[in-house]
């Protein structure tokens, strides 16, 4: 797909932007090699530090603009955790805030031209998705013991239906981390690949204005998607956390 040459001289390399390269030299990529992944992950750490540590350093009672950004982000996620996961979910707020801030910063950094989008990699999102899945499942068993399994046994349903529903619930429970992680990676990857495809069309003079307009439009959509996917990832984490905290619905 990536190195197929289309007819008419068009060259599509939509997937090349996702290649992992060592930062220094051209060696093989071992697990410890500093790569472009490392670089952009470090940049997202810096972005998080900038937003949540440097901007609100004034600690003013009447916030400055930068301080408001940090406080809005804090209030937004805090309220989400409180509303969706419940009052007792608040003590897991730092973990959820970590996920949200990382995903938001990585998504927006990935939109910079020439950037490497760390969240477009299934390996990256799968670590977070499965991390949330295992954390929530273990938390459920630790808090409720074996009665956590009642999550799958819907007592509101008629008795003959319950085994079928339990099967469906169990399947959907184990599918959660897959959809949770692939949703984010897929959205990011698809958006960036589409931009690259339109960019390849810009080489043809006749349709290049259309192509550039389309790139602009898709880019605007991607800005929206970058935030919405971070929001959706976070709110789903809160929903899964609520299931672990209150499995009896």
């Amino acid at each position: 797909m990536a190195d197929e040459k289309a007819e008419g001289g068009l060259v599509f390399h939509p997937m090349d932007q996702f290649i992992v390269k060592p930062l220094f030299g051209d060696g093989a990529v071992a697990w410890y090699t500093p790569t472009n992944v490392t670089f952009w992950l470090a940049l997202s750490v810096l972005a998080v530090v900038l937003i949540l540590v440097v901007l609100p350093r004034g600690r003013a009672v009447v916030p400055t603009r930068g301080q408001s950004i940090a406080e809005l982000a804090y209030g937004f996620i805090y309220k989400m955790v409180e509303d969706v996961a419940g009052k007792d979910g608040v003590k897991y707020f730092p973990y959820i805030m970590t996920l949200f801030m990382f995903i938001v910063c990585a998504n927006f950094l990935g939109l910079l031209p020439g950037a490497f989008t760390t969240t477009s990699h299934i390996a990256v999102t799968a670590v977070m998705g499965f991390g949330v899945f295992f954390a929530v499942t273990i938390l459920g068993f630790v808090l409720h013991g074996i009665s956590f399994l009642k999550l799958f046994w819907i007592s509101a349903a008629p008795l003959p239906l319950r085994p079928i529903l339990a099967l469906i619930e169990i399947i959907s429970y184990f599918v959660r981390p897959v959809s949770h992680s692939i949703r984010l990676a897929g959205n990011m990857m698809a958006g960036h690949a589409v931009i690259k495809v339109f960019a390849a069309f810009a080489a043809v003079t006749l349709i290049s204005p259309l192509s550039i307009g389309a790139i602009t439009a898709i880019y605007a959509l991607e800005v929206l998607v970058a935030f919405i996917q971070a929001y959706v990832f976070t709110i789903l984490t809160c929903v899964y956390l609520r299931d672990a905290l209150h499995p009896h619905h």
Partner: protein
Amino acid sequence: MATETDTHGAVSACVDSHGGAVGMPQLCGDWMGNQVFWLVITLVVIYFILSRVALPRIASVLAERQGTITNDIAAAEELKQKAEEAEAAYNKALADARAEASKIVAEAKAEIQADLDAATQKADAEIAAKAAESAKAIAAIQASAMESIEAVAKDTTGEIVGVLGGKADAKAITAAVTAEMKG
């Protein structure tokens, strides 16, 4: 992109000799360990920065703001209460002053009334005394006039009787005049 790897050939099963991607880079197993390793480090670093520095600081600022707002609202409430108290005191002072004023007015009125009553009484008494005196004087004048009339009548009667040729008996004339006068 990444054409500089041309001369080195493929360094990974996922990159072809031109540096282009083979298949999906996302599914390349050679790179996953690297990504996972650095991602875990990133998340741990972000978590520690957030939980140790950023979140407590923002929370304290928000709490401080909440406290300030609460204090300000309490202070405003207090000031409002003070203002209400002041208004009540003012209204009370006003009512007191009104009452005082009306009391003074009533007192003055009563005093004037008393003076007036006394003066009227005195004047009445004086008038009555004058009237009595006048009545006495009138009575005296009347009496003296009556006496004069009697005397004149006796004289006149004596003269008339004398002119008519009768012998005027003084006693008879007096009795006749007195009888006439009483009739």
